[in-house]
């Protein structure tokens, strides 16, 4: 970290040329390929893509919480100028729950069933506020529980996770993330595991939170509808590659990548959003094994040309802040 006047204008997070492989029984799965994306300060960036496109994997790389069958990881993940991939485990542990926090997809399994909410909410703050007493940390937790809409916090903080509904548990997870005042908050499909009415409530809560939250949010979803209500910018992922990044406005008004266009037209034709919409694009998501040096979308693209199959089209800047990886864009 070098400080100085350039810091405020430099992006909070920059992911450069990220490649990630997993070793599997079938061989090497190329789960992320040349991923590039930028998260500016004080912005909400949405990541959209169908199931298996590598959204959660991207989040795990930023958190450096990777499974043991990881066989290759290269590229850079710069947070405030520091390359997270170069940190030793102790250094990374200081980043987690301090500069970065994460809300997980399934609130039913993300909290420890045999400890009270109080124990868990207090302990997650210790890294960020090492000097504070348990009492202070508990008071912060109570205040935050009230803010995220959990009724009767003083009584409920002594309860165990199974005594809360799914929606309430996700509110607890959100409260935990906000408690550590992270520079970057990653929310990995925080509403997918919830039913529709609860989902709407949580989205409303997130909208309220964004008013007062000073950090940036990486919001993962497979619904463009949800992304459009919450996010300033959108990153579109397909089969482990970033195919387009733009401001929400540009992306929705003038999408440049054929996959983004297909995604948008599906979303419009099928009101409910989610995976069902994505399946109506003809063809299948490519296998992540033995990928050819070609455009990842070529097999399903209506505008594919021979040159699309000769090299991977790089992510190019088309207009300020608008990038797409397509030879035609």
């Amino acid at each position, binding site marked *: 970290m070098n400080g100085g006047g350039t810091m405020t204008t430099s992006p909070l997070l920059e992911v450069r040329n990220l490649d990630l492989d997993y070793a599997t029984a079938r061989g090497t799965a190329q789960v992320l390929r040349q991923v590039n994306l930028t998260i500016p300060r004080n912005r909400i960036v949405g990541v959209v893509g169908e199931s298996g496109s590598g959204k959660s994997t991207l989040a795990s790389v930023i*958190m450096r*919480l990777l499974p043991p069958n990881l066989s290759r990881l290269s590229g850079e993940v710069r947070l405030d100028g520091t390359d997270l991939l170069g940190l030793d485990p102790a250094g990374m*542990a*200081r*980043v*987690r*729950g*301090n500069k970065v*926090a*994460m809300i*997980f997809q*399934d609130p039913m*399994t*993300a*909290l*420890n*069933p*045999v*400890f*009270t909410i109080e124990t*868990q909410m207090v*302990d*997650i703050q*210790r*890294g960020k506020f090492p000097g504070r007493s348990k009492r202070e940390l508990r008071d912060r937790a109570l205040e935050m529980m009230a803010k995220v809409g959990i009724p009767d916090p003083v*009584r*409920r903080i*002594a*309860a*165990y996770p*199974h*005594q*809360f*509904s799914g929606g*309430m548990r996700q509110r607890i*997870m959100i409260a*935990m993330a906000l408690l*550590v005042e992270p520079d970057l908050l990653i929310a990995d499909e925080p509403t997918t595991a919830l039913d529709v009415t609860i989902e709407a409530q949580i989205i409303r809560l997130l909208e309220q939170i964004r008013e007062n939250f000073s950090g940036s949010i990486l919001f993962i979803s497979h619904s463009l509808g949800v992304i459009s209500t919450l996010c300033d910018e959108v990153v579109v992922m397909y089969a482990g590659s970033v195919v387009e990044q733009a401001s929400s406005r540009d992306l929705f008004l003038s999408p440049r990548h054929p996959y983004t266009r297909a995604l948008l037209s599906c979303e419009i034709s099928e009101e409910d959003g989610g995976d069902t919409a994505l399946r109506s694009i003809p063809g299948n998501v490519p296998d992540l094994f033995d990928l050819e040096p070609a455009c990842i979308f070529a097999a399903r693209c209506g505008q594919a040309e021979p040159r699309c199959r000769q090299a991977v089209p790089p992510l190019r800047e088309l207009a300020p802040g608008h990038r797409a990886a397509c030879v035609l864009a």
Partner: protein
Amino acid sequence: MPASLRFLANRLLTTILVIVGAVALLFCLTLLVPGNPADVLLGPRATPEAVAAFSKQMGLDLPVWRRLAIFFGNVLQGNLGTDVISGRPILTMVMEVLPFTVTLTFASIGLAILVGLPLGAYAATHPDSIGDRIGAVFSVSFIAMPNFVVAIFLLLIFSIWLDWLPVLGAGEPGNYLDQLVRLILPSVSLALGWVGYIARLVRSSLLEVMGEPYIRTARAYGVSDTKIIYKYALKNAAIPTVAILGLGIGRLLGGAIFAEIIFARPGIGKLVYDAILTRNYPVVQAGVLVVVLLFVLTNLLVDMSYGWLDPRMRQSARAGGGH
């Protein structure tokens, strides 16, 4: 009634039923002993008159159901009869040696947990390391080796060859150091298999728990590895471990009896063994009854510890109602 109380009541009821069943079974065993118990107890040189008088005194001439009722009544009052050989109340004899057996059992389980738990935690945090592999070989061999074989080897090595530790007995009354020293070999012989058992159990449960999403959550907030393992994961991993340990308590009590015989320590095992040799059936009966009680009560204790370990088991309406 809250679910936690219902669980408690259920467990208490089954415990009482098991005890009643055990007492009835013990009574039936006396019926199966060949010959007239009075003959057996008084020996071959007793006169027929003496046998008849003794039978009447013990109520052996009454119908079976009356004898069963009397037996139950006596057990309930803590009256286990009088030892014909020494003339002392059997209950007193049992109570004298019970602390030795209880001490041995708890010392063994304590030792096993103290050693097995960190071993298991180490193995789980360093899977497939050399330490893990060596630990696995030792654990499995200790589990496979019968207690009495371990006991005999320990005796040979530490008491006879090396002459480090005293051989037999429980030590002088009042001399706690002596008693402690003499507790070492028997409890180690009992604990060794359990060290392996606990280490393997803790290892596999911990490995499973460490893959759970809630552990990832703790990691995502930079909670230290030590805290994650020893505070968070271990409590989760303790649930299946305790469940399986509960099933092994019978084996542990059985082992304690063998250890007492081999190390000539006073205890229930030694008492019952000597009583069998002299065909002193009432003492055998009382000893077995106490072992059954011990077994049932420890099991109850194990079940109760679930409530402490797993709040889902003691779900009550107090803090609930979050839907």
